[in-house]
């Protein structure tokens, strides 16, 4: 199974200038993904924005997808690279199914595969410009891991990408605990997503929350969060110092 098949030049005698394409900078990007372990499995949240520089160009992009029977992948960064990763994983799962031996790749294995792909691409100076979150449950074991575009990978009880690391992780460090109920987990993720909505320029108010348990994956319908602006200090902030903000 050669994951580089699609990228190899036809004639390997060609000079090195026949560069395969490389992502030098991202074009259409997704922002943070936040995920946590709870009693029955993993909960993951991501908004549905695809930004084009500072323009909020696409507002219905699904950045979380189920992988096989046991895993859920969320991605931030370049959307086209995420779609390419989904193609690689599709092939991986297909070959796994073709063994027809009753065994199936679990989240830990998928995470390891992704780590190898990301790290190898980084070594060729042709990265897949994404930060990935991989969560899943297999045989009662919960797994939640992350891989960055340079191949840094680790697992934890809660993970986030991009701005989520700065804004959501501190909230999770305070409020996460073992055996969260589904309701508490959702509320905790929504608290994180609301802060991101206030403070991340590329956030969009339309999100999905996904859950994965032993039974399988469910991704919610898209919905929006209420925001709070009614602080008295917001109404006339420059009152004490005209010309300030």
């Amino acid at each position, binding site marked *: 199974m050669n994951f580089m098949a699609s990228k190899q030049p036809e004639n390997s005698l060609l000079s090195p200038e026949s560069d395969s394409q490389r992502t030098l900078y991202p074009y259409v990007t997704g922002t943070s993904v936040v995920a946590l372990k709870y009693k029955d499995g993993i909960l993951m949240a991501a908004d549905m924005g695809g*930004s084009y520089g*500072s*323009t*909020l*160009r696409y*507002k*219905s992009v699904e950045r979380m997808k*189920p992988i096989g029977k046991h895993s859920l992948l969320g991605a931030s*960064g370049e959307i086209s690279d995420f779609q390419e990763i989904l193609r690689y994983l599709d092939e991986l799962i297909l070959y796994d199914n073709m063994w027809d031996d009753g065994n199936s790749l679990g989240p830990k294995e998928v995470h390891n595969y992704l780590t190898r792909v990301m790290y190898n691409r980084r070594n060729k100076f042709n990265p897949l410009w994404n*930060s990935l979150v991989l969560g899943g449950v297999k045989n009662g074991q919960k797994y939640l891991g992350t891989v*960055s*575009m*340079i191949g840094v990978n680790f697992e934890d009880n809660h993970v986030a990408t*991009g*701005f989520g*690391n*700065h804004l959501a992780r501190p909230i999770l460090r305070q409020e996460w605990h073992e055996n969260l109920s589904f*309701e508490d987990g*959702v*509320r905790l993720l*929504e608290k994180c997503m609301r802060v991101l909505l*206030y*403070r*991340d*320029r*590329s956030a969009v*108010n*339309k999100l999905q*929350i996904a*859950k994965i348990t032993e039974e399988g*994956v*469910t*991704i*919610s*319908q*898209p*919905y*929006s*969060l*209420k*925001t709070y*602006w*009614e*602080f008295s*200090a*917001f*109404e*006339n*902030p*420059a009152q004490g110092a*005209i*010309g*300030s*903000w």
Partner: protein
Amino acid sequence: MDLEMNLNASHSMGTTIIGVTYNGGVVLGADSRTSTGMYVANRASDKITQLTDNVYVCRSGSAADSQIVSDYIRYFLHQHTIQLGQSATSKVAANLIRLLSYNNKNMLETGLIVGGWDKYEGGKIYAIPLGGTLIEQPFAIGGSGSSYLYGFFDQAWKEGMTKDEAEQFVVKAVSLAIARDGASGGVVRTVIINSEGVTRNFYPSDKLQLWHEELEPQNSLLDLLNSSSPEPMNI
């Protein structure tokens, strides 16, 4: 790799700012987002700043540059009012800003829209973009969010609106820009200036109309799941 937020980036008001004239005065409008790189440093800033009782300015670009320019002009206008013996006109305010912007064009990065009412000329809007050009217009738009509004104004702007029509128009425009410009956001602030005085208004995001692909805000996903039990989460 975007794990680094540039927390030392200068404060820039990405912004959407608007000024329109109507049949009795002017309406100024702005969003409320001030960003430091990709971080929203202030989600409720006030970008419409008072210069005199009857002249206000909408600020965009560098937060520091626009503040210092408006501070100087407020100071000059105060002296001017004393020497003149009556309120300054919006034309004088605009020209003073032009002088500072033009003569310091290599150092400043701020685009301003001046709006005011005086007894000689009524309601007037002056745009002073980067470089220090002064241009009097029936309406003006500025800031990064304005890119998304040129088509809207071309199609929907009309001369001689009433006060309420003009204000609703400004709120709609800022709200449309906020929907598409990552550098604009927060609340919509408006300032109406006419012969009777000045009125400030405040429209939080959740009170604004929903645009394409935007959904009605909810308290939580749990409310949606509990209310629509026949149709739970789908793949």
